[in-house]
């Protein structure tokens, strides 16, 4: 039998390490606890499914498992938005620097493998673990929802949920790549972990606050003196600045995918709203609306990966 390709040998080993590690177990428990908590809240607040097709979000009853909340606990998507980065950072912050500090980088690089197999293998293994976790969690939630509600999801709902899951994996992949980049740049795992967490906190919490503060200070006149075009432009500008934060991109995209009635993510003029038919959009149209957010997330992920790849390949490794 032919030998296993060295890349997949590294992937297997890394996946095994992740799954056996205590930090992954703790984080997994945290994610499961919070997600089932939000699922319980959602199930209690979903109410009865509509008798006929209906319009609006009521016709996409199954999706409310992921979006419904009564205010006591955030919804499923909010929890993923918050814990996803933590998962990515946990899996990647010591990817390279721990190998360096242990001296095992020396050992691996003397094997007959390409140098980039190590970095690519670590990223692939972490991504596979995240993907398996999220898909399992999603199908578990869907299964529990199916049992409790008794209403199966439609094809449209199913594919929307799959799209949401893929998007969640992509979102975590961004933070995973960022933390791997820091693990290449910084020798100490603590430094790379702290830097990644600092970036996450800044982008998730402080950056929106800063933008809104600046926006408020630069807000145009309101009331009778308000110019609609200026107000419209102002709102667009504020939203565009907010979209530099990956959490905003993720939030926009997931909300649109799981709430089919959402037709726009920005301000709408009266001309745009009048005559619009308040029907839910097909999946394709929803994806079209959030295509800029998707490409933004993909671009940010690829950029982080490219930077970490470049840094790692050029690094002079001395023990």
């Amino acid at each position, binding site marked *: 039998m032919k*030998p*296993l390709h060295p890349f997949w*040998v590294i992937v297997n080993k890394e996946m095994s390490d992740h799954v056996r590690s205590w930090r992954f177990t703790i984080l997994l428990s945290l994610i499961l606890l919070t997600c089932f908590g939000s699922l319980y809240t959602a199930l209690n607040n979903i109410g009865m499914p509509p008798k006929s097709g209906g319009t609006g979000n009521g016709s996409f009853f199954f999706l409310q498992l992921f979006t419904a909340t009564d205010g006591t606990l955030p919804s499923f998507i909010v929890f993923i938005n918050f814990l996803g980065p933590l998962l990515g950072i946990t899996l990647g912050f010591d990817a390279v620097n721990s190998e360096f500090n242990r001296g095992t980088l020396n*050992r691996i690089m*003397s094997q*007959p493998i390409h140098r980039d197999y190590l970095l690519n293998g670590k990223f692939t293994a972490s991504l596979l673990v995240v993907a398996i976790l999220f898909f399992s969690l999603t199908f578990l939630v869907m299964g529990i929802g199916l049992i409790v509600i008794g209403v199966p999801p439609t094809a449209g709902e199913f594919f929307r949920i799959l799209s949401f899951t893929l998007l969640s994996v992509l979102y975590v992949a961004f933070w995973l790549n960022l933390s791997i980049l820091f693990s290449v740049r910084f020798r100490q795992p603590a430094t790379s972990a702290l830097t990644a967490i600092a970036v996450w906190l800044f982008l998730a919490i402080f950056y929106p606050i800063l933008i809104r503060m600046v926006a408020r200070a630069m807000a145009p006149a309101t009331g009778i003196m308000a110019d609609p075009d200026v107000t419209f432009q102002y709102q667009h500008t504020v939203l565009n600045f907010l979209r530099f934060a990956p959490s905003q991109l993720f939030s926009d995209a997931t909300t649109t995918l799981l709430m089919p009635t959402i037709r726009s993510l920005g301000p709408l003029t009266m001309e745009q709203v009048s005559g619009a038919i308040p029907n839910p959009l097909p999946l394709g149209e929803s994806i079209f609306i959030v295509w800029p957010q998707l490409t933004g997330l993909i671009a940010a992920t690829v950029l982080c990966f490219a930077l970490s790849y470049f840094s790692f390949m050029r690094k*002079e490794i001395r*023990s």
Partner: protein
Amino acid sequence: MDIRIENLSKKYAAQTAVDRVSFEVRTGEILGFLGPNGAGKSTTMKMITGYIGIGEGDILIGGQSVRQHAGRLKKHIGYLPEHNPLYEDMPVMDYLQFCAALQGVAKDDIPARVHSMIRQCSLDAEKHKKIGELSKGYRQRVGLAQAMIHDPEVLILDEPTTGLDPNQIIEIRRLIRELGKEKTVILSTHILPEVEATCDRILIINKGRIVADGTAESLRRQAAGQEIFLVRIEDAPDDQVLQALPAIPGVTNVSGPDTATGRWEIQAVPGSPARRGLFHLCVEKHWVLTELIPVETRLEDIFRNLTLN
């Protein structure tokens, strides 16, 4: 598989770690690589194993250049790095399977190779334990097993007996001597008796340059310009001994007697009949010659002379 190093150099910024080093190692030879800390031993070994890039010069393994065929040549090299870094969370068998798979050992052959290495390195009792739970000696054996798992033609061992107890050291030396019969072995160590006990040839490097290359015997001959021996003569006044000994043909210098041992140190021309002359002198003078001890130049002294001066 022969190894030929040609004018190998490596610089780290302004510091020259290895400076135009050239030497050869033949198949079936165990080369001892000696040098003080920071001399360039590990850097040279890392360049041979392809872990770091070559600065200038070339390394030819089996006639093939490491510059062009590094990936392919790594399959023929087994490397035990300094400090023997291991994945401490992995069980011994899992780790050896991982290393075998990385080396491209066929999937079906991996279990047999792993069991063979466990037997050869006496790891049977510890094979299911995590590496972090092993003593230093067993970890060193795991490192050695990992270096040999793919049956390489070349073994590069960087301080393989560091931290081992005397019994384990003897076992590892025996294993290395056994391996050295068919493989090309480069062994780096600070333990000079180990070099004498294990190696066919010694290379001493200092500040990135080779300062000595030869067998232990040839190095001693080069270093020792004189034959030195210690003698103890009884029933003889010291002043008469001091007067008579320099007159022996071949004797170049006499010093003593040592107040603690009562011995005289005699330096003579190598190969001269000084000892015969001493014996006849004692017979003639009715002196009793109770001790005649030849003094060999120690490898430590050779090493110190070459690396400190």
